[in-house]
């Protein structure tokens, strides 16, 4: 869990576009079809199976589907835990690579200097997702957030929160 600071609130929470999950689970979906293809093949070849053979085939078909299902759930968990949060003070990027392998980075909203959106290709354009590049003051690298759904909305919220955070910081330093 993320520990939010005093008075800090999550403004926006976003995960990668569902298309990314679809692509990542494409192999699993193809594997899910294998038993059905085998059954269809045996049926079309008019292969007659004894009760014992049929039961054995059924067992291995269900075992295959079960393993595919578990693999899909691991992929889904990695997808679901990969998240970006815009809070009233910072942006938090949690990158979930696989089970027990994750990376978390964050930076203060008032340090944002530039936000660029990149929507490349037909599918990202039609499905409304893209990459968001965030340049921060002092950082030696850009933060790239890939596969963001509605990147323009994401940018608008980010810029709005940045303006608010920057105004808050300058008003605090002005009162000193």
């Amino acid at each position, binding site marked *: *869990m*993320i520990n939010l600071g005093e008075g800090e609130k*999550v403004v926006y*929470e976003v995960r990668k576009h569902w298309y990314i999950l679809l692509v990542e689970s494409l192999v699993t979906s193809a594997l899910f079809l294998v038993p059905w293809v085998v059954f269809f093949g045996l049926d079309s070849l008019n292969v007659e199976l*004894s009760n*014992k*053979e049929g*039961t*054995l085939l*059924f*067992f291995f078909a*269900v*075992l295959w*589907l*079960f*393993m595919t*299902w*578990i693999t899909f*759930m*691991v992929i*889904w*968990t990695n997808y*679901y*835990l990969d*998240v970006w*949060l815009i809070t009233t003070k910072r942006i*938090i990027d*949690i990158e*979930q690579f696989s*089970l*027990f392998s*994750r990376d978390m980075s964050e930076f203060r909203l008032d340090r944002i200097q530039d936000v660029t959106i990149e929507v490349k290709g037909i599918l990202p354009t039609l499905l409304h997702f893209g990459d968001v590049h965030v340049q921060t003051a002092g950082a030696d690298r850009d933060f790239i957030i890939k596969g963001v759904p509605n990147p323009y909305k994401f940018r608008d919220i980010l810029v709005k929160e940045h303006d608010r955070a920057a105004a808050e910081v300058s008003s605090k330093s002005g009162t000193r």
Partner: protein
Amino acid sequence: MEGFRESLTDFVSPAILYAIYFVALLIFTVVSIALMYHWKNYNAYSSIPKRMIRTYFLVSGAFLFAMLIAVIAYST
């Protein structure tokens, strides 16, 4: 082909199927513990949808039950 099918059913004894079933059960247990650990500790802000957790256990349970029925049917 017929010979292969007969030798396959002779080779795969109910004990082997039970062993495979218990290995699958073991894998399910380990993966479920890992997933639940992640769902509980690594969800950033909002919690994992309860419907997804329920679906995971229901579908897995259905598969395990179907496999168990198949093993019992195969051994009788």
